[in-house]
């Protein structure tokens, strides 16, 4: 994944006027169809990475690269400027704020993505849909504040079994603050936040936890080498073409 463009403060500021979607490639069959059409020109070959700016109805491509934003823009400054220009075209006086939990498809995928990003993960757990909804709304009321945006990866579940990979997770319902392991295949409970917490308290807990969180350092070559040596293998929902080629070569 490209680093210099998406880490740029100007691009991050400009992103506040966009709905930002980062789908996990090969992790959903339905999404794969859309991505193939929108990002990869309708060919049958998916790529690990794609980038696109779309109109609010998702129908019109305003900027596209079959790879990263670095193939569409000279530098991050140019990307930020173009994003601001596009956002101005769609700005309205009564612009509605973004709401809702920007969660991953599953707890399993959220732990992996949190590990990739080097971020902590927040998992909403409730055994009733209403309970999950109530806890999600509570999170939703604080996570879109500037100080907290982009600091956590989210997931929710009603299945106790989904929490098996989280060491320290009990039976209590609430919001689990989790540190993923280096491969994102499991996690360690840092804190259990009860449902009775107020929005102010929740914000404070999340700010403090993010401040205390130590992002683990990784090195790409060693990470992949040790992972393969130790049999760490990620099953995807959609076939990965590169991996198929790699396996055929062996």
């Amino acid at each position, binding site marked *: 994944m490209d680093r210099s463009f998406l880490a740029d403060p100007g691009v991050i500021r400009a992103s506040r006027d966009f*709905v930002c979607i980062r789908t996990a490639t*090969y992790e959903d069959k339905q999404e794969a169809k859309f991505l193939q059409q929108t990002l990869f020109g309708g060919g049958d070959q998916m790529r690990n990475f794609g980038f696109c700016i779309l109109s609010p109805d998702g129908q019109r491509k305003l900027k596209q690269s079959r790879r990263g934003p670095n193939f569409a823009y000279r530098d991050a400054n140019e990307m930020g400027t173009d994003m601001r220009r596009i956002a101005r075209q769609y700005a*309205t006086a009564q612009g509605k704020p973004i709401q809702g939990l920007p969660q991953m498809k599953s707890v399993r995928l959220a732990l992996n993505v949190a590990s990739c990003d080097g971020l902590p993960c927040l998992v909403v757990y409730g055994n009733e849909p209403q309970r999950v909804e109530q806890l999600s709304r509570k999170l939703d009321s604080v996570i879109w504040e500037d100080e907290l945006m982009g600091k956590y990866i989210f997931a929710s579940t009603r299945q106790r079994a989904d929490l098996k990979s989280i060491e320290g997770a009990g039976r209590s319902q609430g919001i689990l603050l989790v540190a993923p392991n280096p491969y994102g295949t499991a996690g360690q409970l840092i804190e259990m936040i009860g449902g009775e917490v107020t929005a102010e308290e929740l914000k404070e807990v999340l700010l403090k936890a993010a401040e205390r969180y130590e992002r683990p350092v990784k*090195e790409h070559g060693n990470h*992949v080498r040790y992972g393969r040596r130790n049999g760490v293998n990620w099953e995807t929902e959609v076939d990965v073409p590169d991996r198929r080629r790699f396996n055929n070569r062996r």
Partner: protein
Amino acid sequence: MALATHKERSIMNRRRPLFPAVRWLPVACLISCLSTPAVAQLAPPEGPTYGGSLPASKQVMPGIAWFGVLQDGLKQARQTGKPILLISAAPQCSGVPGMW
């Protein structure tokens, strides 16, 4: 003989102004190639990284807030009228998770 030498000299004199341009042609091509984006798949990150799009920060910093499910994001865009920044990235490398 003297005439031939004179002819050769005359040819060389005529060609000389072209010679520097020909000599610099490979260099110009190289500069041109280097100044255009490469066409290969993004290379894996090099050196130590703290992950994601903020690889150099040991601390958790504010960043882009991503919707992880396509349909959730598309719905938000329709409701808010905001344009969409869409990225697709694989959270595994050669089948090993925990690294984009």
